[in-house]
């Protein structure tokens, strides 16, 4: 009998677990711990629409009053420790909560860089709403911002900052921006697009130090160059927030290690979202840091807790907006295979597929083709063998291809 479930983290993962538990009919206690001012808000937009439009408060992911209506107890508090033997959670203020199941939905913490000038006003990260408010204050026309790290958040903020009239420089330590998530070829195209709108992208360059008396005045890069700046955004990624889980003896390795049901090394402890090192469909495992996967994992964890779980190996799915282009992807774009590009007549919109040796679709990435991508995503998900000449021809609809492939599958 489960009487009480403690969920640590009130972002998308935590709140989805809580609401999913209620939707599945669980009527016991739900304690949701979140240390931020706002709970369950739209985090991906912090580098995009929310930042651009300067909205007064974050976009909520739940209708007003849902926590009360669904009897989800919010505790605006950080959990300091968890004792898995007695199943007790302790908050930093010393409050003690006895629970039957625990879900870690603690997400990522930004990777801290240690450099001269790291404490100056204007050096920041972007993970939370309050980070966004701080960053927004610096993004004025003619202001100069240096972004350290050419990943998704760095490139998204660069695009937004440029739209707001700021002067933007990206420092990327690697050979290409975005290559870890989108692959080198896409990274290169995104770099051209960013450069075309006037963003200075410097590869194989990192941050040496930041100059200034109390606030940021200039950045000294690893090549010795000096860039005058009002703000520095450190966007080199995050690390799973495993502090409490690790201290509790839960198995952690680049995140909290879970099986495809979201269960950790302790039978009553689960994890979902960015903090979870979750098994993937291709046999590997990692933390995915994407919106759809987080939702799927959270729903899976709620089902698993109530004994209704099914194994849910993940296929990465995400989106980004860079230099005004909408990019959506499914699967791993860095995986080996043949590249096939399906081009559409309008503008530069296209979908790139990676085809595996066995002729199935490993991954897909769409540029400015959301409607078509919804279908491409199903093709990759269903792991169907697809006639490649049809796939390359935009006149043959993807819907038609899905239907034909399904029929072929049945015949075989």
């Amino acid at each position, binding site marked *: 009998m489960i009487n009480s479930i403690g969920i640590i983290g009130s972002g*998308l993962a935590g709140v*989805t677990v809580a609401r999913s538990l209620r939707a599945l009919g669980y009527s016991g206690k739900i304690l949701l711990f979140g240390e931020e001012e706002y709970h369950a808000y*739209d985090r*991906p*937009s912090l580098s995009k*629409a929310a930042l651009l439009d300067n909205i007064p408060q974050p*976009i*909520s*992911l*739940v*209708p007003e009053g849902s926590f009360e209506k669904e009897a989800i107890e919010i505790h605006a508090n950080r959990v300091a420790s968890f004792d898995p033997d007695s199943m007790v959670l302790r908050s930093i203020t010393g409050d003690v909560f006895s629970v039957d199941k625990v879900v870690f939905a603690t997400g990522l913490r930004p990777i801290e860089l240690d450099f001269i000038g790291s404490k100056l006003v204007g050096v920041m990260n972007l993970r939370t709403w309050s980070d966004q408010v701080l960053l927004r204050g610096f993004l004025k026309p003619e202001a100069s911002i240096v972004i350290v790290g050419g990943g998704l958040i760095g490139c998204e903020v660069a695009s937004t900052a440029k739209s707001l009239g700021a002067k933007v420089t990206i420092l990327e330590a690697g050979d290409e921006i975005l290559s870890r998530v989108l692959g080198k070829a896409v990274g290169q195209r995104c770099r051209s697009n960013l450069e075309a709108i006037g963003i200075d992208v410097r590869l194989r360059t990192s941050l040496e130090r930041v100059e200034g008396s109390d606030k940021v005045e200039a950045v000294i890069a690893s090549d010795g160059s000096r860039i005058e700046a009002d703000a520095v955004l450190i966007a080199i990624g995050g690390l799973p927030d495993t502090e409490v889980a690790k201290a509790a003896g839960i198995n952690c390795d680049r995140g909290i290690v879970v099986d495809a049901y979201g269960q950790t090394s302790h039978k009553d402890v689960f994890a979902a979202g960015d903090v979870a090192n979750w098994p993937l469909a291709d046999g590997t495992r990692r933390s995915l840091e994407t*919106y*759809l996967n987080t*939702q799927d994992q959270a729903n899976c964890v709620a089902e698993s807790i109530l004994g209704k779980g099914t194994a849910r190996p993940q296929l990465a*799915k995400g*989106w980004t907006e860079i230099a005004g282009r*909408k990019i959506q992807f499914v699967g791993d774009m860095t995986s080996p295979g043949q590249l096939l590009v399906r081009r559409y007549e309008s503008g530069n919109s296209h979908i790139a597929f990676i085809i595996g040796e066995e002729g199935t679709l490993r991954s897909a990435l769409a540029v400015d083709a*959301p*409607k078509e*991508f*919804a*279908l491409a995503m*199903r093709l990759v998900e269903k792991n169907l063998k697809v006639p490649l000449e049809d796939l390359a021809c935009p006149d043959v609809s993807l*819907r038609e291809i899905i239907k034909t492939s399904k029929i072929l599958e049945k015949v075989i």
Partner: protein
Amino acid sequence: MAYVKLCKASEVAEGESLRIEHPGGALAIHHYEGEFYATQDRCTHDEWSLADGFLENGVIECSLHWAKFCIKTGKVMAPPACQALKVYPLRVNDGDIEVDVDAGSETV
């Protein structure tokens, strides 16, 4: 009751959605398992046409950030949206899709 003819039923293929411009806000006409449904076209999360989305099992998925809504009730089935869609009474009259455009409501 002010039913207005918006399009022909034959213009919306089974499994598809069609955007119809209207002064009070664009509508989406969905054709699912032989039945037609009318909802507001704009996703409640961001500026995007739901008719551009993916219709499956009576649920329309926004193609921008993959929020999901029930086309019959307007209910949110997946975030990032949190506000329900307006749904409109619809009837098929002699091959025409007619919608009571003034009677849009959030039923959930």
